[in-house]
């Protein structure tokens, strides 16, 4: 993908979407990678005993998906300064999770070129399950 520059973006722009769909295997891979072995992510009986309908996707995995969304967009010359989200809804395995972001502000300061975004994960029905924000820097063409 071509490097995106500060001059290429304007407020209201949507960045390229990232679609995810977690198999239960991916949840186990994530558990191994993150060190989070909470059973609600791979043991259906355990999950249901806690009052959940079934297995759910790790919140921090959805946060990392939003990290990938930003990483893929900013290219090699961009940097993520901060990003985060809150977990307002649950996502289940084998269900599409759409990761999206919209530019809310851009400004230059101290020779750096900053872009603020709203980012979120979305269920197939459009419900936002992990709304958050991000701050990145992009290279300038000048």
């Amino acid at each position, binding site marked *: 993908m071509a490097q995106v520059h500060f001059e290429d973006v304007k407020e209201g722009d949507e960045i390229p979407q990232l679609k995810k769909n977690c198999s239960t295997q991916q949840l186990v891979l994530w558990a191994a*990678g*993150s060190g*989070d072995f909470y059973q609600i992510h791979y043991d259906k009986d355990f999950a249901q005993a*806690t009052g959940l309908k079934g297995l759910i996707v790790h919140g921090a*995995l959805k946060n*990392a998906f939003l990290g990938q969304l930003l990483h*893929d967009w900013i290219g090699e010359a961009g940097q*993520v300064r901060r990003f985060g989200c*809150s*977990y307002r809804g649950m996502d289940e395995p084998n269900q599409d999770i759409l990761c999206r972001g919209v530019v809310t502000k851009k400004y230059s300061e101290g020779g750096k070129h900053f872009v603020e975004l709203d980012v979120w994960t979305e269920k197939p029905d459009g419900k936002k399950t992990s709304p958050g924000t991000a701050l990145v820097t992009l290279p300038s063409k000048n």
Partner: protein
Amino acid sequence: MADEFEITDEMRAQIGVDSEPWTYEVTTTSVRMYARGIGTEDPIHYDVDFAKSQGFRSIVAPLGYLGTPVYLPGQNDPTFGFPRRAGGPRLNIPMKGLLDGGTETEYLDVICAGDVLVETSHLADLKLRDSARGKMLFITNESVYKNKETGQVVAKQRLTSIHY
């Protein structure tokens, strides 16, 4: 039990008190494992030669990955891996249910395989809310990660957990 739970002055007194430091390791294997967990295929997270050709010390930690805490049996939580070190909050929570509430990460530098980080954390906030599930306790912890070799802060993270 949980319905009678209240945040006490003793609990609030633990806000802002720093834990003892703990070592987090960022290795080529752990970076690749985390990247596989996300499902990204960017070679910058897998191929050391490629990452070096792009100007990095080694493969780059995916966003969200701040290393893996050194695991010592009896000293780390066996389910979540986090250290049960001295100085951390002791809240004695009666709620059995637990959910992620949110994650916010601030980056001050790029984290690469080979980095050893030293993390300290403190309890940042406690909130109790009523919900359809009963009382829910929101616990927010803030962690600061420093590069062990340089002493530079490389990242700060706020994690919120929900107990119900």
